[in-house]
């Protein structure tokens, strides 16, 4: 296996190198997506299947689609470096030397690093029974360090507002006349693949309590289903969002905060779940989170305030 690991690691490095220095921007993006998949593979090898799933779904999948769509949306002459040439040769050399030194130092440090056995993580594993779920990562995300997760939902919401304020929708409001949408494959994709994705997403959310999966992976897959629908022209952007859509957007963060605040008088601490009710509360919150993540990611992709089914 060491050979496999070595080859995989080398591949990642080469892909990263190509991604950063590729002469053609398009190539750089494609390489980035491939690198994301390779990373997911390597993380699976590193006993982090949750993260492998997340990277594949969000890091490589959704982000990849978004990168490619953005590239396509750019005016032709802006797709290359003409207006933004790389730094001068001297700077490149200097940066090269600096980054080689940086890399060597980090490699040496990582090689020498000996994590403690009484790390916080060991504590987390030891007190898993109190956490309400069997999956350690979900326990950390939704219980031990639920505060981080809650704030992260805020990041997602703000990023969405930022993207909306830039007013550069990727999914135009009018009927999309994209080449390829009349392909016979499209209806198949839209009608069979999407429900499948929805199913997988919901399963992942629920599975997060026991094995690999969770709100983020599941939410990403659900959002991905939406993206597929947009790409198949079964959904399109809308200039305004209905109150329902906005409610779904903030559902996760809002339920999370209100639940947390409710625990202040009940349990004496923010987000301290009452014993016995831990699991149902966490599952409820997880589904809310997944819903909001899915809608947020979908809207981050379309770059519009809302989505609607196009009129036929």
């Amino acid at each position, binding site marked *: 296996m060491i050979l496999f690991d070595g080859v995989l690691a080398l591949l990642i490095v080469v892909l990263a190198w190509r991604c950063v220095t590729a002469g053609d921007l398009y190539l750089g993006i494609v390489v980035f997506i491939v690198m994301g998949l390779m990373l997911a593979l390597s993380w699976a090898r590193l006993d982090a299947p949750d993260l492998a799933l997340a990277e594949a779904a969000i890091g490589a999948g959704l982000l990849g689609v978004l990168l490619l769509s953005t590239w396509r949306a750019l005016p032709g002459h802006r797709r290359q470096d003409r207006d933004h040439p790389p730094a001068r040769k001297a700077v490149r050399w200097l940066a090269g030397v600096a980054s080689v030194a940086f890399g060597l*130092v*980090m490699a040496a*440090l990582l090689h*020498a*690093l000996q*994590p*403690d056995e*009484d*790390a*916080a*993580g*060991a*504590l*987390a594993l030891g*007190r898993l029974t109190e956490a309400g779920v069997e999956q350690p990562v979900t326990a950390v995300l939704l*219980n*031990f*360090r*639920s*505060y*981080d997760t809650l*704030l*992260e939902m*805020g*990041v997602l*919401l*703000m*990023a969405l*507002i*930022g993207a*909306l*304020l*830039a*007013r*550069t929708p990727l999914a135009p409001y009018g009927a999309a006349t994209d080449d390829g949408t009349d392909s016979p494959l499209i209806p198949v994709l839209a009608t069979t693949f999407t429900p499948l994705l929805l199913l997988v997403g919901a399963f992942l959310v629920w599975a997060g309590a026991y094995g690999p999966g969770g709100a983020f992976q599941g939410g990403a897959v659900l959002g991905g289903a939406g993206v597929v629908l947009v790409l198949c022209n079964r959904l399109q952007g809308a200039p305004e969002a209905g*109150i329902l859509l*906005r*409610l779904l*957007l*903030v559902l996760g*963060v*809002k339920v999370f*905060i*209100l639940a*947390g*605040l409710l625990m*202040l008088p009940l*349990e*004496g*601490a*923010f*987000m*301290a*779940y009452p014993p016995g009710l831990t699991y149902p509360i966490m599952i409820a919150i997880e589904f809310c989170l997944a819903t909001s993540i899915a809608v947020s990611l979908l809207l981050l992709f379309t770059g519009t305030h809302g989505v609607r089914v196009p009129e036929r």
Partner: protein
Amino acid sequence: MTEWVPVLVVFVPFLAGVVQFMAGRRVIAWWPVLASVATVAVSLWLTFAVAAGGGIEHFMGGWQPPLGIALRADGLATVMILLTAVVGGLVSVYALEAHGTGDPRASHFWALWLMLWGSLNALFLSADLFNIYVTLELVTLAAIPLVLLAGPEKTVTAALRYLQFALFGSLLYLAGVALTYGLAGSLDLALVGPALTDGGITGAVAATCMVVGLLVKAAVFPFHVWLPAAHGGAPAAVSAILSALVVKAAVYLLLRLWTGPLAGLADGLVAQLMGALGAAAILYGSIQAFRQERLKLVVAYSTVAQLGYMLLFFPMAVAQAWEGAVYHGLSHGVAKAALFLAAGNVLVYLGHDRVRDLKGLDRSLSVSLLAFGIAGVSIMGLPPSGGFIAKWLLLRASLETGQWWWAVVLISGGLLAAAYIFRVLRYAFLQAPDRPPATTGPIPPPIMALPATLLALLAIALGFTAAPLLALLGGLPEGTG
């Protein structure tokens, strides 16, 4: 009840922002008022609680560190939250007019600003290295859309550059956090110190990554390149928030880490280097501010310079330097917000903010201009003002530690600040003999002029309130220096 206050200080504004986003424009008049008042109220509650009973700690989820995340309201966090409440409250008053019912994107402004307010408080209270990363990103990702509110066509380049630097800075910080966790097996600020100190080169590299990452976020020279365009281009209320609070959050973290987990690592030479960066920022920022043609860019470059003063704490690292640096943060926050709001009023009235064309402004905009001048007194570090108290403390610290070269920097910085402030006033005082200035806008109503004036007067008042505030801050954390 008291132990709940830190949670409320974070989530009252944060939740209010979320609700604002959901409810949209319908609630624009009253919801922001309610939310701002409530936030100021809980912030004051926290201040009085800490002043009366000392620091407050809250374990999120009831899990103690190292397993869980703690919120710690100590003196430093509390004065920053107080600053945020004061500046935020008055900027909110200004924004009620500037981003009121007349602004089509008012709902976005208030949602972002209220969430940013909560995020800032969360950042100040956080006692966990990774949670700090999350709050840093929250603050950044709220700040950048706010910059866009000036109209994406005008500010998108600045916002994009801001985003690039901010993202890279926080990832660099996160790299340091990763190494720290590898060394210490914990993320709590109070627990990671010994492992970092004993961590040899790994500890040093971890510390370097975190510090450099924060320097990028704090726009410290030479990482300042993203700041002027972003702060200069944003709407006035946003500029005030960004310059007074947002960049300061990163400097705050530098102070917090340096006097906390990194205290055992602080090396004399590195500390001198930090001081040198601060000195370079002071000189470079001031000279650039003097050379700018647009009023808001003058003020923005002034921020680059003023942040440098806080960095002078590191080489001196004595109690007076600590007090001086923090007090500088407070008085700069108040004064800079006043400057930006005043500049915003000029922009509203004239439709431009070209420094050379401010002729005759003193008659029509006398209140805003007076606010600009009064706040300028504090920026120059002249008495009586908060800026003077801070400068005095830093000056004393530099002479007491025998590092007289910082005294020279402090003195020259004050003179350079006088140069760029008076340059603006000079053009504004020039009489326009032939005709009144060609205006495009109305004279800003009192609700826009008063917050600037009040903030400016507060900057002066800070010259007299140092004793209670420094008592609240508490002395230099143990083990530093």
